[in-house]
């Protein structure tokens, strides 16, 4: 029987074509980084979904916590001056 040393979990990010950024595709198990890349290739690019793969062991990802999301993200809500629509220009002004 196995001594229960499982393959760690990896997160897979795929660039679907050059010009686009890598996007989270899902996760998988692999014993090491090389295998994780190969498994990602076999699992997540069977239908030409990718031209580049990133893998990172899930345990190395630090995520923001939802119970801080109000303090992290809500303060940006009222900073409307960061958006172009905040500024009033007459319609005659073009290319702006």
């Amino acid at each position, binding site marked *: *029987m196995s001594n*229960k040393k*499982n393959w760690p979990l990896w*997160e897979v990010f795929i660039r679907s074509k050059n010009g686009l950024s890598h996007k989270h595709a*899902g996760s998988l198990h692999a014993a090491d980084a090389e295998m994780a890349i190969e498994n990602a290739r076999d699992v997540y690019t069977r239908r030409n979904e990718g031209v580049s793969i990133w893998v990172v062991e*899930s345990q190395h*990802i630090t*995520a923001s916590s939802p119970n801080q999301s109000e303090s992290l993200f809500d303060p940006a809500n009222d900073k409307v001056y960061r958006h172009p629509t905040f500024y009033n220009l007459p319609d005659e002004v073009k290319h702006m």
Partner: protein
Amino acid sequence: MKSCIFAYKHKAILPSASQSFYDNMKEPNQHTFEDQFQARIDAEERIEPKDWMPEKYRKTLIRQISQHAHSEIVGMLPEGNWVTRAPSLRRKVALLAKVQDEAGHGLYLYGAAETLGAERDDLLDELHTGKAKYSSIFNYPTLSWADIGAIGWLVDGAAIMNQVPLCRCSYGPYARAMVRVCKEESFHQRQGYEIMLTLARGSEAQKQMAQDALNRWWWPSLMMFGPSDKDSKHTAQSMAWKIKRFTNDELRQRFVDITAPQAEFLGLTIPDEDLRYNAETGHYEFGAINWDEFWQVVSGDGPCNRQRLKARRKAHEEGAWVRDAAVAYAEKRRQRKAAAAQQQQVA
């Protein structure tokens, strides 16, 4: 995106299990949490792994997602049974690719369950010990090549009907996995129907083979939607949580409505004397399902339950040394690299 998709570092996401969760905040009571949670669901917001969720929601999801994952990998067996006997090379690659997709789907789904803090190995243990359920349909044998056609047409057809609404499930990772699954499954049903069509237009023996397969797979396919609404213990809560979008009976009816004309096109007869189209309702009426058979198969006494579990256990047990060796080698290599780096530092 407000919340992140990665829960693994933060398995303790539940108020009951996490002290740090309450750090720097007043403790609202459980009731408020649940109300807020339900309000988010009602507003069609998606729930992500690290968000607060009722323990029962988490458990329901782990149960449903893992059952779904188990169904995918057990489902590889009846069709895999014909991979080596597919009657042409074109059929062989198509079937192989389809069964491989099912492995992929199992993998996506185990991944979704893992975002809820479950471990794939524990889930597999539950499957192997018979504790976990999986779709009863895969406990029926595949006896002829036509069964591969029937499975693609009926079983995948039923599965798609079940799965499409799950793309809008309230739990983000499950919904995303299902989007991928549904996209990939679109060829599965066509593959099956094409096989049936070829047989139905073939020799007398081939037609007979196709009819026989329909006879054996029709009723089990209807059972795939689960018990009738009045007997389904999970439906109401799952509907409220938007894990489920339609009831078992609604989906079953839709399946019959869509499939009956397809059988007619094939020139095959659905084995149900009570099946008839009701022009008033616009639906097909169909005969009574043998629920005794359903419960018998679900509780482990179907034609192939034992063989299926045995095959899964065997693969897992015989793979143990391979998995262990890969871990051992990765560890060795890591140590060698570290040692080499240290040596370089000394030098």
